[in-house]
């Protein structure tokens, strides 16, 4: 019943550039319900203490453990080895800066994105800390919540051919974030104001509709619909002007 798993894992430490990037093989016996989180921790404890990878929540919440699992981006903590073949290839996510081995820095990328998009509510209304929250109808709240579920894991960016080829493309996570603020009635920015940043080839018109983001997002955010929403609003803004 129990299988032997053959891992092929990408190794490179930027602190020791004299050792070139390479793939290293490991063997491990499979245990019931083993996730890649467990497998990688066992490899580090039992075989190679220098192996680098990221985990925080181990429950698909923090988004730090995304990596290429047999070529496809996914959360290692959510992936069970029983769903994978005997041979498992692990690589770090592309597009993001490599920290070492399987660990990449998604934080700087997403911070830059959020600053670029000014991903916070823009309003002239003075803030009243004592006041009640504004009411919002349920469908709008749900639509915002749907977009908010993004855990910034970076899988959609790594899965996107355009993001791989063009470093300035904001990708599905970015466009999903734009959609979130376009839907939110509290944000007073008009589509034409968003247009300056997003109605470009770095924004929504750089997207060629390959839909790997939509197929791969571990939170199953409806990215096809979110991207199309932004595209329609931006196309309209381009025709309307101000």
């Amino acid at each position, binding site marked *: 019943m129990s299988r032997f798993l053959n891992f092929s894992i990408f190794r490179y430490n930027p602190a020791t550039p004299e050792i070139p990037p390479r793939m290293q093989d490991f063997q491990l016996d499979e245990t019931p319900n083993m996730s890649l989180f467990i497998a990688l921790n066992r490899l580090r404890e039992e075989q190679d203490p220098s192996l680098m990878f990221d985990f925080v929540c181990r429950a698909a919440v923090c988004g730090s453990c995304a990596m290429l699992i047999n070529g496809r981006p996914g959360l290692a903590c959510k992936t069970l080895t029983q769903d994978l073949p005997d041979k498992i290839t692990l690589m770090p996510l592309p597009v993001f800066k490599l920290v070492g081995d399987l660990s990449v820095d998604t934080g700087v990328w997403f911070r830059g994105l959020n600053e670029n998009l000014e991903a916070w509510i823009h309003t002239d209304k003075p803030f009243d800390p004592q006041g009640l929250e504004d009411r919002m109808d349920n469908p709008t709240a749900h639509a915002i919540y749907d977009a908010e579920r993004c855990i910034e894991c970076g899988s959609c960016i790594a899965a996107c*051919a355009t993001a*791989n*080829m063009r470093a300035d493309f904001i990708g599905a996570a970015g466009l999903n974030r734009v959609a979130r603020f376009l839907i939110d009635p509290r944000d007073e920015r008009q589509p034409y104001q968003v247009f300056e940043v997003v*109605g470009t080839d770095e924004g929504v*018109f750089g997207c060629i509709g390959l839909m790997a983001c939509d197929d791969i997002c571990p939170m199953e955010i409806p990215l096809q619909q979110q991207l199309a929403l932004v595209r*329609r609003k*931006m196309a309209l803004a*381009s025709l309307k002007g101000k």
Partner: protein
Amino acid sequence: MYLQETLAKSPRWEAWMELIELFTGLFLLVFLQFHMLAVATIILGPAAFNRDALMLDEYYLSYIGIPLVILAIIVHGLVALRKAPWRYKEMAIFIQHSRRLAHLDTWAWFVQIITGMAVLILAAIHIWNTLSTWPIEAAKSAFRIQSGSFSNLFLLLLIAEIHAMVGLYRILVKWSWIHRQKFTKWLVYATIGFVALGFIALVVFYFLDVKGLT
């Protein structure tokens, strides 16, 4: 701030390029399918085919339509190819990425670039042949198809239909609110339908008695 980028920045044009791509693509799609239906009237017999060709001619549809289609192909080709991975590094990244990912929709874009360029060449030959024996008549078409054009035209039919229907798929994905899974099946059926119709028309032409017509 970077001077050259700030001065050159015109998101409006980047949006309009996308809209031009959308509308030239849609226009060519409608033209292509209408053209397939018109050609398929040969199945009803040479008389029906000739009557339709004559009608398009009489109402000047051919004289407006053909230059418009040629223009649309040129504009569409230029605009649609602007995002192709032209630099060697981009191309290598795209191919390696697609192989790692093994994802059908990602490959489909590559297919569209290749089929687009193939359509450009094959359609140019096809338009040239048709115009050089103007007007369109069943006997002339049958003669051409029986003397070697069959395979070229079948290839054009197949490639153009794949390109156009993958294009329609991509338009629906990019612009509509309908989930992909809901329309993929129908697009595949429609593609098979149009290719089959075109193929039958070609076969009918192939076996048409040219001497009996002239």
